């Protein structure tokens, strides 16, 4: 019996969907805009995340060692830094590498290079470049390093930690503020945008069902149960969501292909087309799932109002 009911509801839903062509097209178009917005927020989130990550990657703390610091002592410190849960990576730059980098950076500045050549020995100490997992964790790392320095006392091999440079610290704090604000603002904008488009879609479906309110009354008066009346509308809503989802996914293919290059160049190396292709199944699930759930829920609620007879 339930299978027969299911078949009848499905058939009625599909028939109504095809026969109410104008209403169906209008609903699908509005829902496509909603799902497109949902999809765009996914891509915007990825681009924003990547851009912020690139900004975060620019933050670091450098530990400058004295020229007399023995390498094994420095490597020992590198190992203890790497053991910290806050540390993402530690890069060791030997004295020679530091000198080579310095020369390279000043290759057009003959005066500085000449002055360097006048010196009897390499004046640069080794450097440990520390990257934290999160910008807020640099303070902990810097405190750890300072503790090390205090423990070693006069025998400390650390010359300077640039976290304590006023300028560097201010830049880090500013970067943290910017990335956090951008993230919060992004979430709000995305949330509001999705809410608005969901509301528009929801109301469009309600209007579509409003046009059928007399039919719903007739169905009730000829003895149709609530499920039998509601079922075909839910099937219709699901079909709107499915078709709109497929259209949205089809639109995204050429769109992300077209935007792939520019986004790769401008926003921290994320090519939205590659992202779309590599994450197709999850994006498919989100878009189609949103469409189907939205269609079914909006229909369910819209019909509910006219069933009270």
């Amino acid at each position: 019996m339930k299978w027969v009911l299911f078949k009848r509801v499905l058939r009625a839903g599909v028939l109504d969907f095809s026969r109410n062509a104008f209403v169906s097209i209008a609903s699908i178009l509005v829902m496509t805009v909603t799902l497109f917005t949902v999809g765009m927020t996914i891509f915007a989130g990825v681009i924003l995340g990547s851009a912020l990550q690139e900004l975060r990657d620019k933050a670091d703390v450098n530990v400058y060692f004295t020229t007399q610091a023995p390498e094994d002592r420095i490597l020992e410190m590198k190992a203890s830094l790497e053991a910290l849960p806050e540390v993402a990576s530690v890069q060791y730059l030997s004295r020679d590498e530091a000198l080579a980098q310095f020369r390279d950076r000043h290759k057009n500045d003959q005066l500085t290079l000449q002055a360097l050549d006048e010196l009897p020995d390499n004046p640069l100490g080794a450097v440990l470049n520390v990257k934290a997992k999160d910008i807020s964790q640099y303070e902990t790392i810097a405190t750890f390093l300072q503790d090390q320095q205090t423990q070693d006392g006069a025998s400390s091999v650390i010359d300077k930690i640039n976290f304590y440079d006023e300028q560097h610290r201010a830049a880090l704090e500013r970067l943290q503020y910017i990335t956090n604000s951008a993230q919060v603002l992004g979430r709000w904008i995305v949330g509001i945008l999705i809410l608005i488009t969901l509301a528009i879609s929801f109301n469009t479906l309600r209007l579509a069902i409003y046009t059928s309110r007399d039919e719903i009354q007739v169905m009730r008066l000829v003895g149709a149960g609530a499920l039998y009346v509601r079922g075909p509308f839910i099937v219709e809503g699901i079909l709107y969501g499915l078709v709109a989802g497929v259209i949205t996914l089809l639109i995204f293919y050429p769109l992300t292909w077209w935007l792939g290059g520019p986004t790769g160049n401008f926003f921290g190396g994320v090519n939205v087309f590659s992202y779309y292709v590599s994450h197709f199944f999850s994006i498919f699930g989100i878009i189609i799932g949103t469409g189907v759930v939205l269609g079914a829920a909006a229909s369910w609620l819209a019909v509910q109002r006219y069933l009270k007879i």
Partner: protein
Amino acid sequence: MIYYDRVSKIYADNSVALEDVSFSVEPGEFISLVGHSGAGKTTLVKMLLAEEKPTTGSVFFESINVHEMPTSKINTLRRKIGTVFQDFRLLPNKTAYENIAFAMEASGKPEAEIHSDVPHVLELVDLGDKMNNFPHELSGGEQQRVAIARAIVNQPDVIVADEPTGNLDPVNTFEIVQILKKINDLGTTIILTTHNKGVIDSLKKRVITMDRGKVIRDDKEGKYIL
């Protein structure tokens, strides 16, 4: 079979639609409810279908108080009562066949029964050749005949026809009344509301006359007297 027991209906603005109405309908009867617009005929019909609740009093169908029925049972009640409306109220996106089949599907009838009964009932109302037409492709009289076919397809105990000829020309009115008489002859109770004098006078059946929410006459073989 049907019993209206001291039924009154007073709306929120204190307008009185029905006042202390009592009468009963026996199985197989053909009764006509007559009266001017606003006399309360449609309100009585709506109460039988549990579309409206009385302010006071009760409506019984087969000894069961219609308004004390759980919501889930109201569908079952409505399947026992075939309804025909003045404005036909067919489902616009369904063909004549599908409109009638809908009533059977709603009551859970098997496909085989639907396939055999729907064409048969369409033949009964002389629309066998229009089963695949949509309502907008049918004339008013044809639409009303589809509505009657839909009302009788589940072989209900009662047919309630609320001004079924209100939108029809005299020829179609005559045909619809003949169909209703035929259905009544087969044993189905008919409740007809109308203010068509010609129809009432030709029927020579029981007539309940209403005025301003009250029953003012109940004649066994009545005429339209107002």
